[in-house]
Each structure stands twice: as C-alpha cells, then as structure tokens.
C-alpha cells in the first residue's frame, strides 16, 4: 500500500567531476526532472508536469480515503521550496498550491446533496525535538506528540483551522511561514534546521437517507519540508544529514548514537529482539506514520547540478535512497510451522496409504499426479516404475496384505471424526438403554441436566454432587406410570427403592398441559410446578439412583 517517489534533477548516476577515477554511483527513482533551464529546453519539466505526475495521483488517493504524504528533502537552494510551493506567477505554482486548488475545484463540482466536504489545516514546526504550532500565535512552548487508539497519532493542542477555499490555505501558510521565520531569527538559527509539516485534514461526509446516518471518510494530506541537508554539524544541530560512513563524532554526547547503531546492527531482519531507547522521537514518529502506516507517500529530492555541490547532492541522494528503503519495521512475527508441518505430513502419508490400500491400482507421484500401473497382477507391465515391488505376489497374498494394510490404515486414519462416530454409536447404544429404563435423552444426546422440559411432568434425580443432580429425567406418561425396581415404567435401583415404589397418574387438562397426580405407595412425594421433587428426607437421605452401564456424568 505504499508508494514512494524520488524525483531527482536529471541524475541517474552521479560522477564526481573532480575525481573522475571514482566509480559512478547509481540511484533509482520513479521520475527525474530537470528544471534548471527554461521552457524552450525540450528536457525542461514544468511545475504542471511535476504536479500531474505526483500531485494528481496523491489527491486521488486522498479522495479514496488514504492518508497521503509528500516529503521534500535537499540542500537549500536546490529547489525544494520551488517544487513544493513555487511562486505566485502563473505556471510557477508548486505542488501544494496546485493540489489545494485541485481539491477545492473537485469538491465544488460535487452535485450529490448527500455528500459534503470539510477541510481543516494545521501547520507545525519540529525543531530540536520540539513541536511548535505555527498557526496559533498564543501557543507557547513545545507541544506533545501523542497517539490515540481510535484517532491515531496527533499533536496535542495543535490548532486546526477550517478553510473553505484555497486563498484561506494560502493565507495560513503564509502566516505560518512568517511565524517560522520570526522564530528562527529570534533563535539566531536558520529555519533550514527545522522540519515543517503542513497538514490538510480532508473529511468526506456522506448522509445515508435510508438510515439517516452519516459516514465519514477522513484523510490526512501531509506536506513535509525536511530540514536542509547542508552543513548542519558544525554547530551541532542535527537536521537529517546523513554523515559519510567513516566519520567520527567528536563529542561524547553522541555516544548514545554509536551504541544504538551497534545494538541496531543485528535486529534488522526479524522482529526486534532488542529495544533501543535512543531516537529522534518526533521525526521517527513522523516517518513511522507516513512510511510505515497505511498511507501513500512520495519523496522528492531536490538536487543542485553544480559540481561544487557534489558532496551535498550525494548525501541527499543517499538519504532519499535510504528513505525509500524504510519499509514498515513492523514485521509479522510468525510461529514456526514445524509441528503443523509434521502433522500434515503424517496426514498426507495416511491418505496416500489409504489410496494404495483401497486397491486403486495407482501410484502417486510426488507431484500428486496419478500414473497408471497394475499392482496385483503378474502380467507384464507397461509404463510401470521399475521399482514396483508388487509384481510377483500371488492374488491371495495380495488380498491378505491389502486387508492387513487396510486395518492398519484404518487405525492410523482414526481421526477425530471417527472417534466422534464411535462416540456417536456408543451414545446411541446408551440412549437405547436409557429409553428402555424410561429415562429420556435429548435429541442430540447433549447434557441432559441443562435441559428441562417445561410442559411435561417428569422426575429428575437429585444428588449431593450438584454435577450429578438433575442429570436424569424420567418422563411421566399420560395415564399411569409405575416406578420401582421391577416390572415398572421407570426403573430405579437402590437400597431404599421398593419393588413397586410409587405410581404416578397423569391426566391431561383442558389446556393440554400435563398434570400429575400421585399415589403414594410407601413414601411421601411432594410436587410443584409439574416437577416432582423427591424430598431429601423421604428416601432416607438417598436419591434414586439408576443402574446404568455408564456413569451419568459422561452423558
């Protein structure tokens, strides 16, 4: 879902003109533009052309609901601002103004009454790890970068200005740029050492007439002007300069960088096994959101073609190249498949043997294709694998072997399904037995205890162990139901159960509800709500037990 572009000024491979012996250095990118001459030059790329290549597609993504981001990076004076902002003159406007204009043009063309748009902008600056609001003059000090689980990453208290047309945006951008310059002057530092992020929050709201619900699609368009890449180290300001590999940092304050680079050396591939506390937090956050997240990002590297800027140009390209390679650092960390693979291999073998044993006369090749062979005949074979061992076996022997194999295979192949089938047949046996005893079982053979018929009079067992209680249900038929040890409808066994324990008489009333009457034979039985309860003190503290081949709880 990511896409990055480097548009570089006409350099595909750069050669140090001062040191021709050096090997040319190669970089790849999607587009490369030359804008250091004028329109007459056939290779000249106009602002319009750059916008059409990069801006239009980005805007399209924004309408689709993606977050989009355009990074600009490079030496001051190499055309970074020209590419991003351009000049006021016609045909000289950069990507940002063209995109904003296009955005408002497209929203204005909308005729769907259920679709509405809103646009808000914010403008901030990151300098020395501090975030500053460039649009709110009252905002003082550093703002905090935070993440919300639903709303995503945000800058706390950053002002968002609602805008309705491009001139609003232009005004705000202008205000922000002024604030940036003023601050830079106050700090006696150049703004080229700070990063500036201009964000357009674009909301598309659709009203659904059927449900009268509003659905929102929010996309964030970030335009990032990264700190200039030029001489940032003499004063210690960092910017985004990537130093040449071999350089030595003089100050011990950079020890952390060296150590974290060491620690970082190994953890690149799989998921991080280590945690490295040192980081350019705000910029990392910025990069994380735009390069690692669900967004479309373009990177523009502005280069100067002058040979005096060779080093800077190289450094810019290297940076851009590295930015291109920043992939989502969040890798999926999967469990090893070893066990699953083993399991499946076993299954594959089982199935293969099953195939063989079924006498399909087939051999399966590794690729899963079938080759025709004879397996149980002495007849000369055609096109049979020469190693086939089954050639000289008599039919009887073969049949015997087949039977044996089948038995083994059947055991091997006993999967859960078969176990289940076995369980099922045992259940059916059990049910039959229970039915014989007058105990009813729910259709699916499920746990009877939970199931309690509302309308039909019945008996349930009670037990000191609550798990065993109410496991058995004895229905009382219409008419007379005899309970006891022998020659009865409901058979109970137990020390205190009489041969004929009791008799229930059930009569159907006019509501078609069963009501049961009882005839006490030896003991008192109380009933309520059609559920006949055997009170604890009746059967001498004991509950009716059923004599079953299986313990009740396994039902």
């Amino acid at each position: 879902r990511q896409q990055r572009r480097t548009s570089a000024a006409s350099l595909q491979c750069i050669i140090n003109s001062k040191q021709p012996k050096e090997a040319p250095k190669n970089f790849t990118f999607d587009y490369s533009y030359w804008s250091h001459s004028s329109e007459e030059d056939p290779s000249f790329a106009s602002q319009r052309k750059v916008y059409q290549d990069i801006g239009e597609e980005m805007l399209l993504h924004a309408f689709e609901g993606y977050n989009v981001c355009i990074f600009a990076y490079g030496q001051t004076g190499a055309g970074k601002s020209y590419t991003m902002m351009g000049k006021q003159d016609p045909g000289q406007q950069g990507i940002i103004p063209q995109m904003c204009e296009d955005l408002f043009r497209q929203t204005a063309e909308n005729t769907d009454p259920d679709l509405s748009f809103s646009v808000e902008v914010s403008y901030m600056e990151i300098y020395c790890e501090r975030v500053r609001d460039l649009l709110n003059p009252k905002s003082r000090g550093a703002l905090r970068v935070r993440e919300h689980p639903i709303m995503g990453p945000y800058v706390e208290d950053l002002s968002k200005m609602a805008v309705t047309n491009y001139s609003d945006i232009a005004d705000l951008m202008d205000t922000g740029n002024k604030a940036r310059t003023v601050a830079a002057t106050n700090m006696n530092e150049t703004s080229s050492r700070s990063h500036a992020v201009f964000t357009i929050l674009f909301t598309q709201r659709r009203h659904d007439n059927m449900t009268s619900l509003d659905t929102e699609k929010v996309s964030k368009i970030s335009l990032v002007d990264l700190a200039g890449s030029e001489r940032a180290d003499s004063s210690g300001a960092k910017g985004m300069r990537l130093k040449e590999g071999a350089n030595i940092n003089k100050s011990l304050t950079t020890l952390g960088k060296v150590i974290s680079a060491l620690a970082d050396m190994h953890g690149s591939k799989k998921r991080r096994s280590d945690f490295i506390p040192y980081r350019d937090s705000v910029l990392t956050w910025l990069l994380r959101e735009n390069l690692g997240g669900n967004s479309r990002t373009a990177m523009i590297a502005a280069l100067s073609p002058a040979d005096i800027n060779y080093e800077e140009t190289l450094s810019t390209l290297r940076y851009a190249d590295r930015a291109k390679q920043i992939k989502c650092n969040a890798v999926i960390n999967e469990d090893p498949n070893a066990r699953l693979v083993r399991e499946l291999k076993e299954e594959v073998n089982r199935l293969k043997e099953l195939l063989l044993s079924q006498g399909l006369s087939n051999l399966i090749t590794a690729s899963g294709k079938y080759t025709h062979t004879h397996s149980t005949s002495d007849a000369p074979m055609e096109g049979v694998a020469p190693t086939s061992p089954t050639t000289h076996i008599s039919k009887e022997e073969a049949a015997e072997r087949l039977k044996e194999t089948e038995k083994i295979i059947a055991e091997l192949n006993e999967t859960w399904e078969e176990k289940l089938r076995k369980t099922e047949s045992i259940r059916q046996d059990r049910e039959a037995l229970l039915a014989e005893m007058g105990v009813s079982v729910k259709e699916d053979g499920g746990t009877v205890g939970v199931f309690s018929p509302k309308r039909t009079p019945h008996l349930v067992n009670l037990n000191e162990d609550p798990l065993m209680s109410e496991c058995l249900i004895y229905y009382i038929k219409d008419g007379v139901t005899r309970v006891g040890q022998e020659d009865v409808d409901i058979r109970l066994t137990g020390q205190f159960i009489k041969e004929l324990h009791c008799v229930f008489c059930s009569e159907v009333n006019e509501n078609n509800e069963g009501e049961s009457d009882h005839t006490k034979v030896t003991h008192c039985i109380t009933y309520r709500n059609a559920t006949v309860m055997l009170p604890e003190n009746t059967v001498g503290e004991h509950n009716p037990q059923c004599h079953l081949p299986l313990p009740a709880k396994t039902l």
Partner: protein
Amino acid sequence: MAAHQSTEWRTVCEKFRLAQELSEIESRKDPENNPFRSKYKARDLLKEIHCSLVKIHIEEEEEGEDDNEADGGSMQIAEGEPGNECGKTCTGDSPAGLRAARLAVLQYYLGVNHIETEELSAGEQHLMNCMKLIDKCTTTRENVSLFIQARNQLGILWAGRDEIEKAQGFLEIAESMYLLYMKEDGQPPLDLQDYFVSEGEELSQQEKIRSRFEMAYTHTLYYLAQVYKNLEQYERAGQYCHSTLQRQLEYKQFVPLEWAINAATLSQYYITKTRYMEARHCLAAASVIATLAGEIPSEAAAKESDAECEKREELLQKRSEIARCWIKYCLNLMQDAKKLLEDNIGELDLDRQEELKRARQNEEEEKEKGRKSAILFGSSDTFDSICSLEEKISSMLPLDFEEARSIFLVGQSYVAQAKEYFAMDGHVTDHIEILQDHSALFKVLAFFEQDLERRCKMHKRRVDLLEPICKDLNAQYYLLICRQLQFELAESYYEMMDLKLAVADKQDQPDVHTIKKFNNLCSSSMKYYQMFLDSIRSPEGKFPEKLEDEVLRPALVAKFRVARLQSKLISNNLATQLENLNHSLESYSFIVQYCEENPEAKKAVETELELSNEMVSLLPLKINRIRSNMASCN
C-alpha cells in the same frame, strides 16, 4: 626563567587567552554569512604568537648558551644517554623539550583551527608539525597530553577522509602512549591551557588537569569505538563503548540520565550477542545511575511549573525505557534458553535439558568470574547498589520451569513499570509493543510448563492481553500493529487448540464439552487469520492479485493454517464435515494457484506449498469418502 617575566611573554600569554576565547566562545555568535569570523581572528593571533615565540626561543637559547652550558647540554646528554629511545633528541622535561612542546601546542591549535574552518589539508600539516616537534622529545608529563590530543585530532581527520586504517593507527598509538605513561609515571600532566601562563597567574588545579587528561583519553577510546565500528569490528567497538562508559563513571564525567540510557542501550547490544552477564551489568548500572538524576517531581509539582513538568516527564520516560530494556533482557534470556532446549517441533527436549544442566555446573562459574572483572562499572558509591540489583535476576539461561518462572516474574514487574509511562492513552504504539513483549513472555514461559492445562492457560493470558486492544485499534492508523495483533491472536488460539487436542487425546473419549471448546478455539483462530487476510484487501474489498513482499509469506501461511483448521473442525454431521473439507481444499488450492501465477512466491513458502500440493491432490479422496458415506446413509 627570565623570559617568563618579560613583557613580550606576557603579551604572548594574553594573546593566547584571547585566541582561546574567540575560538570557543565568540565563534558561537558568528553570523551565518560569515560563520568563521572569530575562528579566523583566533588563527591570526595564533600565528602572531608563533612568530613571537620563535623569537623568544632564539633569545632564550642564546641566553642559555651564554651563561650556562647546562641547557644546551641537556640535548647532548639526551643524545648520548645509553638506552634512550632512539631518535629522541631531548627529554621532554628539559628546557629544549619545553620549548618544543610550546611550539607544538601552537601547531596543535592552528591545526584544530584549520580543521574547524574546513581547511583540512592545512590543518593536517599543522598537526603533523606538532607531532614532529614532540616526537623529538621523550614522553613526559610536559607533553603527554598534547601527544594524545594531537593524535585524536589526526584520527578524526583521517576517518573523515575515509582512511579508517590510518585513523586507527593514530588512535591506537595514543591509546598505548596513555597506558605506558600511566604505568611509568602517572603524574597529572601539563595541561594544554597551561603552556602559556605568565607569572602570577594561577595554573589549573591538579584535579582539573587530571580530569582533562583523562577526558582526552576517554575520547581516544570513544573514537576508537567508532573506528572499530566503521571497520565492522563490532566486538571491539562494543568493548570500547563499554570502556568509554566505564571511564565516564570513574571520572564522574557524565549526565546521569544520558549515561543510564547509554548503558541500557549497550545492554541491548550484549543481548544480541547473547552475553547476558554483561547485559545484566549494564542494565543494573543503568537503573542505579538513573536514580542519581533525582527524585521524580510529584504530579502536583508538575502542575505548578513547566520545568518540573518536563523533568517529571523525562524521568518517567527514561525510567520506563530502561524498564523496557530489562524486559528485552528477560525475554531474550528465556527465548535463547528455549532455542537450546527445544526439539524439532518446538517441545522441551528432556535429554537435552539434562545434558545442559550437567554441563552448566562445570563451566559457568569459572567463566563468570573471569569475564566479570573485566567489565565492571566501578564507582564506589554506586557499586553495591548495582551488585544487589544484579543479584535479583539470573544471567544464566533458564533450564527448567522454576528458573524460567523467576525470570518471567522479573520481566513482568518491568512490564508494569514500563506501562506506567507508556500508557495506552497517548503512547499507543509503545504501549502495544510492551504488551506484545508481555505476551511473548507468557509464550516462552509456556514452553517450560509441562502441564498442558496450565500451558493452555498461559496462552489464554496472551489472548486476554491482546484481544481487547485488537478490537479497539483503528486500522487506518495502526494497520501494521493490527496485523501483528491479529496474527498473534490467531496463533495463540491455534496453540490453545493444539493443547486442548493433546489433553483430549489423553481422555479415552472426547466429551461434548471438549469438542465444543475445541471447535470454538479453531473458529477463533480462523477468525483472526481471516481478519489478517481481510486487512490486505483493497478498500473495495478486493484481494490483491499480487501480494506485497512484507505480507507475502504471512498471508500464505495464514491461508495454510486456515486450511488446516477448517479440516480440523469436528462435527458428526456428514454434511458439515463435507463443507469443512471443501473449505479446506479451497484454501489449499488458493496457495497452489497463487504460487502458479506468481512463481516468485514459491521460495517464500516452500514447505507449505509442497504440503498444499499434496493436500490438493489427496483431500478429494477424503471428500469422496464422505460423499459415498452420505449416499449410503440416505
């Protein structure tokens, strides 16, 4: 010496002081369009001093020859002295030696000045001049500091020119010179600042001199660390970073929080090298030194003032970061132990366990003693606290559940600490990373647990940790995290399913409850794999024809697992069985087909593809059996 009191000398000293000030202080205020204004002024002054000095020296030498032969004689003595270093023309502490050193100091500052103004070749020339001057003399307290600092500068210079070996040469000589000097002399040497001091002015205090000298050497080690890093000698680089930290602590040249974070980071380097004893020492030191940064301001105090608020924020953050380094320590220690102890399907190998336990008793103790003395962070007031913190957790790979558990518990307590600052509200990514580590801790602990039910419960804890978050997270902003969580949840459920199956297998009959539970776990696992797969779809819901590299393998593995899970679902209804198997077949076919259309994907999922191919050809057999079963039932 007479010259020292002369007006001329006093002017020289004054100019030197001014040059220093221009170079160090004034230069910070130089305008952007003339960034080296003060440096150039300083350079001019240094050149003037050089001229005057040469003049003074000539006078001095003449004077010396006039009234005393002794001074000049010292040169001869040095030359004639038997056993003297060859090529040395005078001793460092003779007047001639001192004169040479003074000129060398000027050359040194001129060199640094040129380098700072980006005239590298000229800078190099001056530094080489400086070296030539001192190389004539024996190394004494007069010139040892200069000797080291000049070589430091040359090291930096050559490293900048990509000539790392050359840089290494200069720095290594500086290193050995320091060691030699400390062995043979060890007196605080003359400071670079103190060469140009007129009578009556105070020399720097002994303590300061010592500190500056040691600092210069600390820098030598730090530069060497970088050189070795650039030479890809990471082992040595790590060692030199460690020494740098050690010396910062020893000479009290550190900012507590910064030092603590660096030590904690270094521990992560040791972790990747599986050197847990060193890692633990770094972490314990980090935790102790971090407390030197002061008390964390209370919430109330933070509300009162911005400064307190910032301090609170910073302290809490760093403390939590150190805690996170500890978590990684615990996690890696357990995971590395697991790697050693597991068999080819990821189960605890009991024979291996026995073997390792026996081996450990013999080796470890000896090894630990030897290694430990080399790496200690010594500072009398903190040493005891560091040690007692170390004792709270083992640095040896856990070999059984009890050992693993005690590491797990420490890890878990750091999880709690880390979450204090990295709360979900405001630090979503960090918070989830910590939870993922917590889940990983449970996962690796489960490996050591032999009781299947309890092991299953540990995976349940993982689910409990991650599931609520996965539900709440907005995939528009945290897509990758969502995917990670979905995948991990799917795997946790899968693990639980496997365990339930193993438990049930021990029973002679699967009861309905177990089967239901089992099916639920299968479904949950499938649900999360499916969520992961759905996250790859376009906004219109279309599955991409070509998967991106970073999701290629996970997506196909997810499909593979779903295929397996579908065929695992238990049902006694033949129609349902048929349906499940058909789904399974579809998933296997998807993998096969995808790899046919995108042959480059084959490499990523070799085993899975092979098995999928098999299943695609074999599953129909099973399906047909069920079909015929159904037919016969009807």
